[in-house]
């Protein structure tokens, strides 16, 4: 027999009662109430540290029994999963192990699981969507960040010719084309848009020493297109946003602000991996067409000269979309050595 409170479910009056179980018959008696019910018809709440048990009775009333007073055998066979969880919640070693489990599974999920899933989804997206994404990005930038090029027409035609001849011999590409713009705000840069547009800025083209280095940068951008990097990156960003918004509750509140930092770092982490992949793609594509991958290192050196100072900041590593320049140059040189050996 245990003591508890009887709530009739309609009023806030509390009645103290004694509750007992005989066979499978639960009965209670106390301050002007008494009654009985089959235990199977009583809905007992799951066990939990520091929370009293609530026994919901068939008549809409309920009994509340303090956590420590509840006889264990009244709940046998109910809430199997929550009983297990409750057991876990009471063990100190489980709490410690949970910290480890959280760390490991977060790492595994962010490093492998989520990117894998995002890549699968990206692969199923229709081509139309790539085109829409590329067009929209171009429309947004054209006229503001991207202005008509000042390069002489014959130079542009020459580059276009080089680009087309090179890309025609690269397998696994969507339809691609070169676009040249003047962009004071972007500076010396090149980027690929998912619809197959590869954009070069005037400043970059002036900085590149020769045709081979132009082709090397093109090859890198074609790598992004061949590997569908933009769509995959977008899908990873979406996955990350969903995960983080679920973890932190709402996206807009104060906790949302603190979520911005990990989101930013992780997105950078993913795009750095893509850059390295595009570099490897470029080395192979160059070698296959008889161009020494050292041209890529030449392009990197030219870029460094165009952005003085960027190369020495060690923190640039975490920031820039491109893995640290020295690292990339070393890889290009290694690819070049291999190329010459053949």
């Amino acid at each position, binding site marked *: 027999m245990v003591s508890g409170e009887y709530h009739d479910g309609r009023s806030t009056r509390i009645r103290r009662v004694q509750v007992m179980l005989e066979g499978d018959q639960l009965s209670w008696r106390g301050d002007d109430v008494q009654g009985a019910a089959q235990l199977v018809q009583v809905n007992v709440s799951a066990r939990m540290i520091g929370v009293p048990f609530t026994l919901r009775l068939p008549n809409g009333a309920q009994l509340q029994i303090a956590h420590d007073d509840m006889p264990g055998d009244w709940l046998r066979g109910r809430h199997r999963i929550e009983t297990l*969880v409750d057991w876990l919640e009471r063990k100190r070693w489980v709490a410690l192990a949970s910290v480890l489990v959280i760390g490991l599974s977060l790492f595994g999920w962010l490093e492998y699981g989520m990117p894998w899933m995002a890549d699968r989804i990206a692969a199923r997206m229709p081509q139309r969507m790539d085109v829409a994404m590329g067009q929209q990005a171009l429309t947004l930038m054209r006229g503001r960040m991207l202005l008509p090029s000042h390069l002489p027409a014959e130079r542009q035609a020459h580059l276009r010719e080089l680009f087309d001849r090179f890309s025609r011999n690269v397998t696994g590409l969507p339809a691609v084309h070169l676009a040249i713009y003047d962009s004071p705000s972007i500076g010396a840069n090149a980027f690929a848009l998912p619809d197959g547009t590869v954009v070069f800025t005037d400043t970059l083209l002036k900085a590149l020493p020769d045709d081979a280095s132009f082709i090397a940068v093109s090859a890198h951008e074609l790598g992004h297109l061949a590997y569908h990097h933009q769509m995959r990156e977008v899908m990873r960003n979406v996955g990350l946003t969903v995960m983080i918004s679920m973890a932190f509750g709402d996206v807009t509140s104060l906790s949302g602000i603190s979520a911005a930092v990990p989101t930013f770092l992780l997105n950078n982490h993913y795009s750095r991996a893509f850059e390295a992949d595009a570099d490897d793609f470029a080395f192979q594509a160059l070698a296959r067409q008889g161009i020494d991958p050292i041209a890529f290192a030449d392009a990197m050196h030219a870029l460094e000269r165009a952005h003085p100072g960027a190369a020495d900041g060690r923190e640039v590593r975490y920031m820039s979309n491109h893995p640290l320049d020295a690292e990339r140059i070393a890889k290009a040189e290694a690819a070049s050595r291999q190329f010459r050996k053949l």
Partner: protein
Amino acid sequence: MHNQGNAAHIFLPEIEDTVFEGSHGRAVFEFHGNTRDYFRIWIVNVALSIVTLGVYSAWASVRTRRYMYANTTLGGSRFEYLAEPMPILRGRLLAAALVAILALAPHVSLRLLAVCIGVIGLLMPWFIVRGLMFRARYSAWRGVNFRYEDDYVGAYKWYLVIYAVMAVFALVAMKLLITNGHQIIAALLIIIGLFVFQFMLYPWVRGKQQQWMAEQHCFGGKAFHFRFDAKVYRRIYRRVLGIYILSAIPAAILVFEIQRSLGWTPAELHQHPLTVKALSYLYAGPINLAIWAYIRVRMTNALYNHTSIGPFQLESSLSYGDMLRIYFVNAAAIICTLGLATPWAVIRVARYRAEHLRLEGTGSLDDFVQTSSRRTRVGAVGAEVDSLLGFDIGL
């Protein structure tokens, strides 16, 4: 309103009744939870949620909320959280899909994004009502659950139409000013307009929203009553401006000094984007926290102190200084422990809030009687969507 993940805000707009016989009764709220128990519950449930890729998170939310509710008492009786995990899971999946669409849309087409935001905006008042109904329906005290009388017209009026009307007025006024414009007069009128909006209209709307929300709640056959006083809200938003100025000056000086000691010229700054980003958080973080905490504390006090039910009047005496200190220490602890201090932080806030809330009045807490015991189910979609997208309903 509440980000329920942060279980600190137990569903309180409703509370009533103690066993008080004296001529002047006072029923206190107490919080009995402790960090040791809550940490274990929290960490196990977080781990299970991650391992199951979020599926278990609905069960996890129910368990952590049950702990927080059950450890909050009024007049010695515990609150209860009654929601079932399955509806929460369904609502959460839908909310996650919405977040995914919103995150994807800007990459594909800005028009699609505008359509999505428009549709969600139109549905928002509906989500708000459903969220309030859900929270009320599954919060109980002494076996009686709270109720939220759905009022979709009111929700659309106070959360959509009012803003639309103000926007239209602002646009029309701007248009008139620009077309027949004497520039100085136009500028003056715009400044006056902004002033009126920030210090008169907006506070009034927020107050009206609170009133609408409080008055739709009921418990044990009695409705909550709310005494609306526009002055209260005007004062809150006046002081927000002061707090902004007071906190922005030291923050700006601090950030400026750090930047100077690093010895970078403005031109060099963009070569150190990570540091710049960190500095901007260092600047904006504390200011945001100071303002957010102020609005939160004052609006909470305003809500409870003007709310009554039956013979009882709620009294909330949160102090801005205390809460600001609690929030700052919590934020620092959570960041330094990479989140492991979250349960401790949640418990601290819950304890402080319970200590500063009470119910005054003559009457018996036993006298709340629900006329109908019909208990309908309420879907969790609204509650999940608004906690994920964070509509600010101002609690």
